[in-house]
């Protein structure tokens, strides 16, 4: 099991109940992390979209994670 720290913003912060959470999972892909997060916080599944950023870059499902990566949950953006 690896432990990842995930930052949350906007409505994702409200759903997680804080600016970040820690999550342990057996896999090391963005897809595995997403599945684990939605399982723990089902309200995430109701969002229009949910991207994951790794080290300030949008990351596709196949991207591999390392424990020291800066990982962020990006709900639908609405700047401007």
């Amino acid at each position, binding site marked *: 099991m690896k432990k990842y720290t995930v930052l949350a913003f*906007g*409505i994702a912060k409200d759903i997680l109940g804080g600016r970040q959470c820690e999550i342990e999972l057996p896999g090391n892909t963005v897809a595995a992390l997403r599945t684990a997060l939605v399982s723990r916080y089902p309200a995430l599944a109701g969002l*229009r979209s949910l991207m994951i950023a790794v080290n*300030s*870059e949008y990351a596709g499902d196949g991207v591999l994670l390392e424990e020291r990566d800066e990982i962020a949950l*990006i709900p639908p*953006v609405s*700047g401007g």
Partner: protein
Amino acid sequence: MITLSETSLDVQQAIQTATRLKAGAVNVFVGTVRDNAKGKAVLRLEYEAYEPMAIAEIKKIVEAAAAKWPLQGWAISHRVGVLQPGEAAVVVAVSTPHRADSFAACEYIIDTLKETVPIWKKEVLEDGEEWISAHP
């Protein structure tokens, strides 16, 4: 120049930053907080940014714009924190040698910014609040 600011945006400074002696056209977009939405009074907006990534994404947009149009100077500023109706939330200023390019480049930048840059807006109306665009 890319700025994320907790205080009022300086439109004049953005224009000065974007203006170049070789550029005859400056286009500026200012997004301001409307006093109404969905027929309700807007009390305030609250903006939150994932700051390092927001700056990185804005840089990518500028690079893409500079590949499409002959950008000479540019400045992009976005507010974070609590905004009252009438305040500027975003300023995009660009200069190009000729005017059609300045309109196209500025519109491309603000359109793309709204799609890709990790900034979030919560609208606080007289009867409730909502993260904009969060739900289908």
